[in-house]
């Protein structure tokens, strides 16, 4: 009787489930299925069926009602699990489906797959918005945070907080966030915005809360060193331009990074803060020094009032490297710099100062119009100062003349020049029509008609993209790509990675003396995982380089075994 009974039951449910499914929503089906399962259970009890029959019966019912239609229930338009995922209000319906599927554990895979697909699709959408320029980097990060919060709810409610679903969610986020380095760059810009403006007036608690959210996204990144490089660049600009919303907020961010990644990750950053503090003290003592010089009657021989300079002295290894040779500074400025150098180097013999004219700023008093003259204090970059001072002697200059007089590198020269002839800040008038600079012969003329309602005017810099909309020189492409958030790993990070991998290989081999290829790759990857995820090929190239330099050798009888060479 049993096999007949089971057979008929199976047939019955097969047909019923098919027909029900074709005529109803997935949600309704789920409800019906649960009912049917309960009914069968009760019936079996009421009929006093042997327990040996109960098991196969349960299995048949579940197979026919659930397993067979799992995919359909996920994919069904509008009411399938995949669709429900897009609707924030359908958490309960999703949970019902989860509960049903949980009776046949393997079918829950379908639900998790749907979750993963949805997250990755949403994520890719955020990224392509970024690419197309319809959203900006901070919006991307906000989007990711929102997604995270949303899917946390989905996993908590619909999946009842199931650990495997949690893992799947994390992996899906990691998947789309690490498709290229744009995510790291966007996050760095987001943080920059917070630390320049966003956290203004926030309490300490609010600051920590918002920075914690940053760390949540940061945790998903596999190329943490890329984020670090971008973050450091922004930090340098904030510190040097004194644009931080508060020192406490900056320190809070560093603390969070340290808690997440360890001391190694943040030691250079702390060095940057230290430099700023020491520079402040240095400035005070230089001021005192100058005052005492004046008192002693060692006044400047020229009748021109000495230029007031404020210097930040940065320790080379901590800050992002510039490697730009200094431009030709106006003579009084150069004089002031020389005086400071003398003062500093007397205190710190053996040190060398390299002046970073690409990173400085200046306040320059300009006179416009005719009597009564309009005087404005223009807040400009060092490069712009060098450019403007030239117009004290000449009314009009060509690009070529400006370049040779200032020795400013071409890309930057164009950018800083164009910033001085925008419609809003037309300090200079450009000869040629259009936005871009035509050629070396293009002229720039001092504009006496310039007006501004402010006495003190900040002249912002145009982006690098705008300076050369058509030129495709590699420097321009690199620079604009960097400011936009490129998909390539910055060269400095790439170089650091090579050193780090080699150091790791040597450390591991020194400790283990002999190690097989796969094990060495695994050890090194593990050691470096806090910062980035090197590909096995990348590590292998470094191994080869170390073999060539005789740090390692291959074992004679086993090519896959490496020996440490003391």
């Amino acid at each position, binding site marked *: 009787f049993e096999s007949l009974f089971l057979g008929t039951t199976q047939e019955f449910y097969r047909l019923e489930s098919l027909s029900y499914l074709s005529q109803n929503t997935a949600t309704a089906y789920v409800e019906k299925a649960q009912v049917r399962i309960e009914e069968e259970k009760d019936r079996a009890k009421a009929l006093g069926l042997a327990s040996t029959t109960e098991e196969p019966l349960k299995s048949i019912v579940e197979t026919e009602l659930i397993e067979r239609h799992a995919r359909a229930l996920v994919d069904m338009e509008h009411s399938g699990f995949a669709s429900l995922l897009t609707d924030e209000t359908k958490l309960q319906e999703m949970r019902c489906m989860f509960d049903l599927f949980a009776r046949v554990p393997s079918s829950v895979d379908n639900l998790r797959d749907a979750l993963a697909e949805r997250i990755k699709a949403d994520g890719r959408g955020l990224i392509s918005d970024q690419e197309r320029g319809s959203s900006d980097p901070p919006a991307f990060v906000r989007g990711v945070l929102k997604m995270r919060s949303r899917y946390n709810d989905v996993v908590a409610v619909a999946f009842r907080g199931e650990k495997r679903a949690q893992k799947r969610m994390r992996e899906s986020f990691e998947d789309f966030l690490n498709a290229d380095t744009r995510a790291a760059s966007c996050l760095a810009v987001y943080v920059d915005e917070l630390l320049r403006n966003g956290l203004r007036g926030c309490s300490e608690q609010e600051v920590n809360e918002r920075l914690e959210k940053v760390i949540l996204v940061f945790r998903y990144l596999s190329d943490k060193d890329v984020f670090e490089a971008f973050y450091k660049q922004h930090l340098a600009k904030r510190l040097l331009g004194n644009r931080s919303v508060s020192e406490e907020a900056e320190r809070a961010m560093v603390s969070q990074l340290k808690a997440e990644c360890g001391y190694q990750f943040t030691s250079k950053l702390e060095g940057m803060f230290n430099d700023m503090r020491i520079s402040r003290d240095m400035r005070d003592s230089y001021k005192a020094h100058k005052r005492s010089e004046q008192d002693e009657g060692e006044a400047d021989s020229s009748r021109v009032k000495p230029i007031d300079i404020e210097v930040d002295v940065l320790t080379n290894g901590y800050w992002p490297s510039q490697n730009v040779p200094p431009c030709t500074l106006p003579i009084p400025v150069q004089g002031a710099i020389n005086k400071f150098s003398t003062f500093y180097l007397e205190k710190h013999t053996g040190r060398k100062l390299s002046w970073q004219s690409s990173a400085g700023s200046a306040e320059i008093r300009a006179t416009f119009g005719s009597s009564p003259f309009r005087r404005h204090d223009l807040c400009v970059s060092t490069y712009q100062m060098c450019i403007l001072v030239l117009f004290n002697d000449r009314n009009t200059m060509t690009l070529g003349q400006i370049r040779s007089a200032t020795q400013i590198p071409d890309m930057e020269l164009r950018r800083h020049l164009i910033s001085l002839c925008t419609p809003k800040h037309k300090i200079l008038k450009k000869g040629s029509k259009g936005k871009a600079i035509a050629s070396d012969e293009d002229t720039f003329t001092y504009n006496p008609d310039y007006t501004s309602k402010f006495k003190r005017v900040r002249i912002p810099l145009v982006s690098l993209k705008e300076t050369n909309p058509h030129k495709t020189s590699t420097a321009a492409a690199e620079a604009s790509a960097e400011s936009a958030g490129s998909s390539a790993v910055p060269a400095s990070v790439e170089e650091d990675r090579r050193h780090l991998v080699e150091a790791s290989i040597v450390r591991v081999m020194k400790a283990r003396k002999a190690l097989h290829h796969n094990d060495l790759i695994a050890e090194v990857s593990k050691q470096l995982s806090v910062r980035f995820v090197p590909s*096995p*090929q990348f590590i*292998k190239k470094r191994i*080869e380089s170390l*073999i*060539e330099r005789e740090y390692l050798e*291959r074992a004679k009888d086993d090519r*896959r075994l490496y020996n440490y060479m003391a």
Partner: protein
Amino acid sequence: RTTSSSTTTTTTTQMWSGSSRKSRSSSSSHHHHHHHASSSSGNSSSSVKESFGVKLFDKYADPDDATNINMEGIVNLCTELDIDPLTDIRILVFLWKMGSKEKPQQISKEEWLAGCTKHKVDTIDHVRKMLPSLDTGFLIHSEFKDFFKFCFQFNREGTHKTLDRELVVELLRLVCGTGSYIAKERLDTYCDFLLSHKGTEYVRITLDQWTSFLDFCEEVPNLEYYDETTSAWPVLIDEYVEHMQSLQQKK
């Protein structure tokens, strides 16, 4: 005779070591020194009891450095033996057996004398008699591996640790042309790959890449099951396999 050997010196040394300007210039001065050297050794031989091969050594020694036989001396030896160093692997086998190790493109007096003692070589005739045994076919596997490595090491220039890829290809054909260790198709395709590779990574070849290639040919005769993800072969070989696989797909 001295004149003709000077010319031979120039061309063959060029083959073995990329630029041999140094050798060429010294060969003209060589012209005079050669006579001088042979006459002086002629005087000393009668007075002192010598170890095996001293006279032979002095005949081919570098006139500017009596502790070494350099490439010109080696080429002179080849001429004497009537073998062509450009196409005859046996001179390399000879030098390897004789124990040249310390520095590339030369054999020291110490090494030479030890080698002569070991192989009972005292005259040029002994060397001539050795020639047939210098076929690589007589080497057992471990010996061939060692010899193969020697071929790379011996051909380095001065303190350089790598060889030009063109030279590597020439050497490969010279050492492995017989096909007993490396299949002809493998050798040909690999050499083509090396020479036509764009980019700077393989313009010069390292010792590891050289020795690995031989092992690779032995251990992986069939490229079908090559797994790049766990491969411990040098990246050069990974790229060669990738190249071959993409050629295969195109067919």
